């Protein structure tokens, strides 16, 4: 028996409101299925489950606001039978948590979330063996054109109310929603993400269940204010707790850009790789050489992580930012990274991010080159221990082998937590990154 709890979707999150269940008792769930939607201060987030099994009981109803860690549902894992009473589970869950305690990571949560209570098979009530019903969460009716428009404008269809026949969502519904979340650029433009402040807490605004454009505006404002507060909390904590050190280096980008140009000639326009992608890849590769920079500082302890999940700061059009993770970035090819980035940017702006993407980042990249910034001085997003900043690649005089030349030059910075690492390791990281960018074919 497993407990599905209100997750922490960022170090600043204390409680969340359950907006919607995507499952009902009796439904079968698999690891990474999205089973609920939770509203935080900043947005509606789809929550994944990490167990396989059958939903036994739902303990928190939509609309209820509960602290992080509260058991939302009981999931009977495979092979189990039986029922735990709601009260028992709730009480146990509350006992397992420090009062007002905040769970920082999914790992932590998982650690606390599995006190199973087995019930002797003989006592299992017949009802528990009810066959798993297929998920019936009603399919949303959307006209093909409306669906296309929504994709182009990064509008989350699941929150729209359809005005067409039988409640179908039509283009007009998407357009009125787009009036709120300003119409975006055409589909395939995953703009090189940029933000002026280091990454912050997760999540972005997903349009709240909208009624009409006018009715919705205040809600958007609330989200923005809440997001600002969340950013404020995380950054203040970072500045208060993390002794940052900064390193900066200039990188000759001519080889990477040449390589990119020839690579892109082989690709159709929509598959072309943005210049930021080799940078992400180089960061991931360099982290495999200096793994101390990849991970967390939690409970006065440095906890490097094996998987490299790169949080990428994405500016939201309505203001604020969000840093969803590109999972296992070191294992992805540049094409896969491009695809992941494009997907992430689209979903970040439409409200379709998954909980794991918001909680799993082990390091963060902030790239502000598109805005002409030369150098980024990052503020680390706790509990991570490093942030890599990229400025604009500019033509600059470059001396090499006694010769002066003009080269495209990028300023890269590392902001790192001095509790976790020292400047020496940080320097090795930047050096490794530079090395990869001089041999782009190995990326």
């Amino acid at each position, binding site marked *: 028996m497993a407990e599905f709890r209100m997750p922490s979707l960022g170090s600043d999150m204390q409680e969340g409101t359950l907006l919607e269940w995507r499952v009902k008792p009796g439904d079968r769930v698999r690891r990474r299925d999205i089973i609920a939607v939770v509203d935080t201060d900043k947005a509606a987030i789809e929550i994944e489950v990490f167990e396989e099994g059958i939903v036994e009981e739902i303990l928190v109803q939509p609309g209820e606001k509960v602290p992080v860690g509260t058991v939302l549902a009981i999931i009977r894992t495979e092979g189990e039978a039986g029922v735990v009473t709601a009260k028992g589970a709730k009480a146990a869950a509350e006992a397992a948590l420090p009062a007002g305690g905040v769970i920082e990571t999914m790992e932590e949560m998982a650690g606390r979330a599995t006190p199973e209570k087995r019930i002797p098979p003989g006592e299992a009530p017949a009802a528990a063996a009810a066959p798993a019903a297929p998920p019936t969460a009603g399919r949303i009716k959307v*006209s*093909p*054109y*409306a*669906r*296309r428009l929504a994709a182009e404008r990064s509008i989350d269809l699941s929150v729209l109310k*359809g*005005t*067409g*026949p*039988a*409640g*179908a969502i*039509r*283009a*007009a519904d998407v357009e009125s929603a787009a009036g709120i979340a300003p119409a975006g650029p055409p589909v395939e433009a995953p703009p090189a993400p940029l933000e002026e402040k280091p990454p912050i807490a997760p999540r972005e605004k997903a349009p709240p269940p909208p009624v009409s454009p006018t009715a919705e505006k205040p809600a958007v404002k609330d989200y923005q204010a809440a997001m600002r507060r969340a950013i404020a909390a995380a950054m203040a904590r970072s500045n208060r707790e993390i002794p940052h050190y900064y390193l900066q280096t200039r990188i000759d980008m001519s080889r990477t850009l040449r390589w990119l140009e020839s690579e892109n000639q082989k690709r159709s326009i929509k598959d072309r790789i943005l210049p930021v992608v080799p940078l992400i890849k180089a960061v991931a590769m360099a982290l495999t050489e200096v793994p101390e920079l990849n991970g967390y500082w939690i409970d006065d302890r440095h906890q490097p992580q094996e998987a490299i999940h790169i949080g990428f700061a994405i500016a939201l059009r309505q203001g604020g930012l969000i840093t969803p993770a590109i999972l296992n970035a070191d294992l992805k090819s540049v094409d896969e990274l491009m695809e992941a980035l494009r997907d992430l940017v689209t979903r970040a702006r439409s409200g379709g991010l998954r909980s794991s993407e918001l909680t799993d980042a082990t390091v963060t990249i902030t790239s502000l080159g598109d805005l002409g910034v030369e150098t980024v001085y990052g503020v680390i997003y706790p509990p991570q221990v490093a942030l890599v900043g990229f400025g604009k690649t500019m033509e600059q005089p470059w001396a090499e082998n006694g010769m002066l030349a003009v080269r495209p030059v990028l300023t890269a910075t590392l902001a790192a937590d001095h509790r976790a690492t020292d400047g020496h390791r940080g320097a090795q990281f930047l050096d490794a990154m530079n090395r990869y960018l001089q041999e782009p074919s190995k990326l």
Partner: protein
Amino acid sequence: MTNGVETLRKVTYREAVREAIREAMQKDTRVFLMGEDVGHYGGCFAVSKGLLEEFGPERIRDTPLSESGFVGAGIGAALGGMRPIVEIMTVNFSLLAADQIINNAAVYLHMSGGLFNVPLVIRSATGGGRQVGAQHSRSLEGWFAHIPGIKVLSPATVEDARGMLWTALEDPDPVLIFENSGLYNMEGMLPAGAGAVDIDRARVRREGKDITLISYSASLFKSLDAAEILSREGIEAEVIDLRSLRPLDEKTFLDSVAKTHRALVVDEGWRTGSLAAEISARIMEGAFYELDAPVERLCSAEVPMPYAKHLEEAALPQVDKIVDLARKMVKADG
């Protein structure tokens, strides 16, 4: 549509067809007209009135009541180098000539390995709404549009009634022209110099942005009237005149749907297996991601055409039905 306004003159659809025949006879001595009652009687719909006197019995030929026979003769004449215009009084009687049209005219070129074209033109009246009973009120042009090897035209405007015949005669292969009998008395403005028009393109007869009404022949005018009413409600309907039923000018209606995102096909044929069904399918194939509402069809009720006036009107597509349906498709639900 092409000439200056000052040279427009008012003609009936019937006169426009007659002028087209006359011009073709004058321009090309290989052209002749044959069919039931086309000579002495002047045509069942008075289209060929006066032509016998003008061109003589060699070129304006009355035939026996034998569609299969005289259509076959037309095919033979075409194969022999003539440019026959065969009039089948109404589409209802074309069934008697179906074998000649479908099994002979449509396939000669193919069966002869490309040696023999059949430059035959068949004109026929079609459509209901005139209280002439079930056997005389059919709209079977959609059936012929099913057949590869022939072209099927459906002139709605006087300009097309005037201009399509010559282009059809110039076509090396069989062309069927269906004239809706309800249109013969319709008056329209024709430029003095009106002549041949293309026979392979649909036309946007009215521009709009909210819904596309796709129609042809007599239904075109019902669609235009409906568009006028809808316009007063703030719904701007684009109205497309197909003109050619085979081949279909897909691009014109797909482009329109890409603009309006909704399509309603108005077709006097029956719904099942209809031309409207074909158009709906083409839109699904070619513009699925443009659709903001399911394609709708307004066709004739699936009954033999009633004789009683009010029942016949109820069976045919009408302006108020087009307006209702279009309104439902465009307006929000509740």
